[in-house]
Every structure is written in structure tokens, then in C-alpha cells.
């Protein structure tokens, strides 16, 4: 498939799907862009006038913006750290020849199939509840005061919940990567006198670098737009301490009915996501080559 003819034909064949995808993306984006430049509040009927960059000015100078921006970064990096480290550990455990490991693997994957709202509710009401949650009972049993997770450490609690959801995904991808490691390399390392730690750092970890990169890129895309877990547990509070950009946009446009301001926030979020993407590709994208 390398003649000029076949390439032209291939491009031609791609045209319908590319057009559809482009329209799918471009139309909402343009509408958001349009809304972000007008004064459009659902509580104020009448003229929607063009206000230039005023919406952006309000959104970007709002102290809540900075707080939620850092919360977003914290949320993403925290979850990435936990899922990658935990995922590597879990993958190594699952790779061992343990009894009934096929069942264990399916069980480990289970949290990924639980809807975000449901898992957030389970964590909120059954585990982290300061009165009748499991952790509270455990703390009392040990003689401590129970922790009110969502009041005392709201963002950390959300990081834990989201990590629990994404850990299986990371573990599964990393497990398949570990299984593709040539056993003879490990045996050669055995003969070369490498202990378990040397083998892990010099052979297993470098082998996993591509899979880790893939997990980071995929998870980042989804983690930038975490929403349901926040809505169900803390509603972004107390104050703005567990609000991320996505949730801030939601409060702007739907709780304060300011469609213009919300749209400006949306555009800002798109720009931030792109900056993160470029930054990540620069940083670790070379791992995916070759």
C-alpha cells in the first residue's frame, strides 16, 4: 500500500468518517466559544450582548480558579502515583503462580466495572462515614477518634476513591506487560548474580516503561474530568477545597446559571488539557517510540 494511487484512494475513503468526527468535535467547541464571549445568564432574560473577554477575566481572576486548578493537578498526580505504584505491585503479585489466580484476576478487575457514582456512595456511606463507616469503627476499636474524612481531608479522600477505581486498570495493563517479559532475561540475570531488587530495577521496570507511559496518558485524560465522585461526596467543599476545574465549571454554569462564564471556563479547561498533553508527550512520549 505505498503507491501514490493507493494512498490517494485511502485518503478519499477516510474522508466521510473524518468529516463526521470533525463536525462532532467542532460544532460544540464553536458553540462554547461563542457563548464564552457573550453575557448569557439564565436568570437574566433579554439581550445577550457581546462582552469580549469579560467572562474570561472573571473566571481567571476568581480565587476559586487557582484553588481548583491546583486541586486538579493534585488529584491527577496523586491518583497517578497511587495507581502506578500500586499497579506495579499488584501486577507482580498477580504474575506469581498462586492458587486460583484466574479468579483473583477477575476479582481485582471488579472495581473498574462499578459506576463512579456507586463507588463514591459506597465509600462515602459504608467506609468513610464518621459515625457508622467501617474506618470509624476500626478507629474506635483501636482507641482513636474517628476521622471525618470529607470534612478533614476532602481532596485526599477523593484521591483515594478515584485511585481505588483506577488501580485495576493500571494493574491489568502492567500485568500483561510483565507477562510479555522474556523469562530467559530473568534467568540470565539470575546467572549474572542479580538479586530480586536488581532484577526489578534493571530488568522489570525498564521493560514496563512503555506500559507505564500508556497508563499515565490514558488515565490523565480521564482524571482531568473527574466529576461524579466530587458531586456525590463533597460537592466541592468545604469551601473550594475539593473543587477541580470540571466541578468549578459545573457550579458556574448550572448552579449560578452563568452560561457565559461556564463556557469561558470550559475553553480554559480545554487549553489546560492541551498544555498537559503537550507537556506529557514531551516528557514521556519518547517511551512509546520504537
Amino acid at each position, binding site marked *: 500500500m505505498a503507491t501514490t494511487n493507493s494512498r490517494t484512494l485511502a485518503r478519499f475513503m477516510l474522508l466521510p468518517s473524518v468529516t463526521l468526527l470533525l463536525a462532532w468535535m467542532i460544532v460544540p467547541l464553536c458553540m462554547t466559544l461563542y457563548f464564552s464571549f457573550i453575557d448569557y445568564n439564565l436568570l437574566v432574560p433579554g439581550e445577550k450582548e457581546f462582552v469580549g473577554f469579560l467572562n474570561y477575566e472573571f473566571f481567571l481572576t476568581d480565587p476559586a480558579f487557582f484553588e481548583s486548578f491546583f486541586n486538579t493537578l493534585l488529584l491527577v498526580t496523586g491518583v497517578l502515583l497511587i495507581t502506578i505504584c500500586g499497579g506495579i505491585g499488584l501486577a507482580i503479585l498477580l504474575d506469581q503462580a498462586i492458587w486460583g489466580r484466574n479468579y483473583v484476576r477477575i476479582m481485582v478487575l471488579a472495581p473498574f466495572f462499578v459506576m463512579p457514582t456507586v463507588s463514591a456512595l459506597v465509600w462515602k456511606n459504608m467506609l468513610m462515614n464518621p459515625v457508622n463507616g467501617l474506618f470509624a469503627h476500626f478507629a474506635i476499636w483501636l482507641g482513636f477518634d474517628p476521622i471525618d474524612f470529607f470534612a478533614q481531608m476532602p481532596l485526599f479522600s477523593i484521591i483515594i476513591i478515584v485511585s481505588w477505581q483506577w488501580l485495576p486498570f493500571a494493574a491489568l495493563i502492567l500485568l500483561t506487560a510483565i507477562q510479555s517479559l522474556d523469562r*530467559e*532475561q530473568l*534467568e540470565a540475570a*539470575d*546467572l549474572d*548474580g542479580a538479586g530480586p531488587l536488581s532484577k526489578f530495577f534493571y*530488568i522489570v521496570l525498564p521493560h514496563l516503561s512503555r506500559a507505564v507511559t500508556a497508563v499515565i496518558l490514558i488515565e490523565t485524560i480521564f482524571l482531568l474530568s473527574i466529576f461524579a465522585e466530587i458531586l456525590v461526596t463533597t460537592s466541592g467543599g468545604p469551601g473550594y477545597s475539593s473543587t477541580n476545574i470540571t466541578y468549578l465549571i459545573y457550579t458556574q454554569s448550572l448552579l449560578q446559571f452563568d452560561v457565559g462564564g461556564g463556557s469561558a471556563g470550559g475553553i480554559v479547561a480545554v487549553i489546560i488539557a492541551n498544555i498537559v498533553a503537550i507537556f506529557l508527550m514531551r516528557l514521556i512520549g519518547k517511551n512509546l517510540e520504537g
Partner: protein
Amino acid sequence: MGSITLKQVTKNFDEVNVIKPLDLEIKDGEFIVFVGPSGCGKSTLLRMIAGLEDTTSGNIEIDGQDATHTPPAKRGLAMVFQSYALYPHMTVRNNIAFPLKRAKVSPAEIESKIANAAKILNLTDYLDRKPGQLSGGQRQRVAIGRAIVRQPSAFLFDEPLSNLDASLRVNMRLEISELHKSLSTTMIYVTHDQVEAMTMADRIAVFNGGIIEQVGTPLELYKHPVNEFVAGFIGSPKMNFIAVPQSEDKKTVNLGIRPEHFIISQEQGTYKGTVGVIEHLGSESFLHVTLECGTTVTVKADGDCPLQYGDAIFLSAQENKTHKFDKNGLTIKTTL
């Protein structure tokens, strides 16, 4: 030092017995080759010697010390794998340095050892490349380099040349033989290519179904195989077996004659046959001859053999070059 002694060694995978009780003595500095058909347990035995596979029963002694339960790194052996097993994300230099770094050798010494190994193996120009950027033969040399810097008491090779093309294989064969001569370290070499076995070995151990059929120098095995299996396995093309209906000694069931030990005649001979396909190799020709009794035999003839497809010829064996086998396949010793 590098003498290895196997005493009544066996290996079971779960219930399946792969190595039957087996004794073998490998002398210091010897080049011994394990040959045998696929699945007969050569790799398994080699991996047991290396310590990568547990020994079910019996003892493995290295330099007179019992090493049956010694971990691989402590046995002082180096192995070259069929897949090379190079570390793909390290440069050639780091690959070779890896065992030295693990052994906490000083950087200056590592540097000089790498330079030395690279010189022996012609790798000096490739030290900063990754294995993925090397050809098959070069990767093979890196694997050998990684083995020699450790100065092991013995080298273990598991079919190291089977991934290379024919001409490169001949070269590497010579290089390994050369290396053995210069290092004079014990080498155990697994292959199922009997040409490699014949050309490289001081001694050959012929395996079959988890037992050693015969151990001996290449010429011993060629001249005095103990049974039909060894006779058929050693020598290329294979020895021909001709059934003997009634023999004078009442024991011989099969007669073995190697292709190079036939006398071809147009007029007379022991066997009458028709020439089938002729393979001309230039220096020699191989005739596939169908005898009257139905057996097809391979016969070696001169390069400019004038025979044609379908010609009728007579064959007889050269004097004292036949092998007699009884009904159990064992060689019947003829009075020498």
C-alpha cells in the same frame, strides 16, 4: 577449574519423568556436546546444571563440591541462551558490564575487562549500541561477551547458533571453537545439529528420551556406535539400514552401511537396485537407490558420477565397514 560430575541425576516435571537416572563426568577444559532429537531433555539437563531448574534426585558436583542446591549465581557458570537473552534497554557495554557490576567489581577493572572482551569478539565499534541495533551474529557475540567477562569455570551453550543463517553459523562455529582453544575453559554445548557436534566436540553425549545412549569422541561414535539410534544419529547423510532375513549368526536383524561405504558397480554386487533422484553437490553426489527388496538407500558417489535416473546398478559394502544390529537394536560386536 571446571569439572562437572552428574551422579544419578533425574528430573520430573510434576508426574512426567524427563531425565532418567543419568551419570556423566565432564573433565576440566573439555568441550562436550549434547546432541539428540527434539524433546529428549538436553535443555532441561543443561538448565539443571546451571541451577535454573531444580534437580528431582541425584547430585550435581562442580569441582568436586556438591552444588545440587547452590543458587545459579554461586555456581560460577555462565550460560548463553538460544534467544541470547540480552537486556534490550541497555547498551552493549552495560550488558557486558551487568554481571561485573552485580559482583561489585571496581569501575576501572570493569572498563578494562569490557575492552578486552570487545577486542576478542570484534565488538569494539558497537559498544554504545542497543541490542536491537545489532545483527544476529553480533548479538550472539554480545551474549558470549557477557559470559566470558565473568571468567566462569564452565560455559553452557543452549543451541546458540540455531537462529543464525547457514554461512554465519559456520563462522560462529569456528569462533566458538577458537574461543575454547584460547580460554581452555570447560564448555557444554547443546545442539541438535550433528554437524556442529562432530566438528566442535572433544566428546559427544548422544541423548534419547531422557537417557544418554553413548558418550565418546566424535570418531568413536562414528566408528563404533553402540546401537542403531546412535548409528543413525551420527553421520550425515544418515546410515542406511537394510533388513537381513536370515543371517549366518542367527542374531543380526539389520545391517547398517554408511552412504560413503558403498561400492558401486555396473556388473556385480551384493544388492541390485535402480537409481532414483541424484543430488549433485559438485564435490560429491548422493544417489537415492531403491534396492530389489524395496528399501531405499543413500549412496555417496563422485562429483562427476555418470549415472542417470532409472539406471540399474549393483551395490556392495566396503570390507569391515558394515554394522550389525540385533533385534533390540544393539550393535553386535564383530571380532576385530
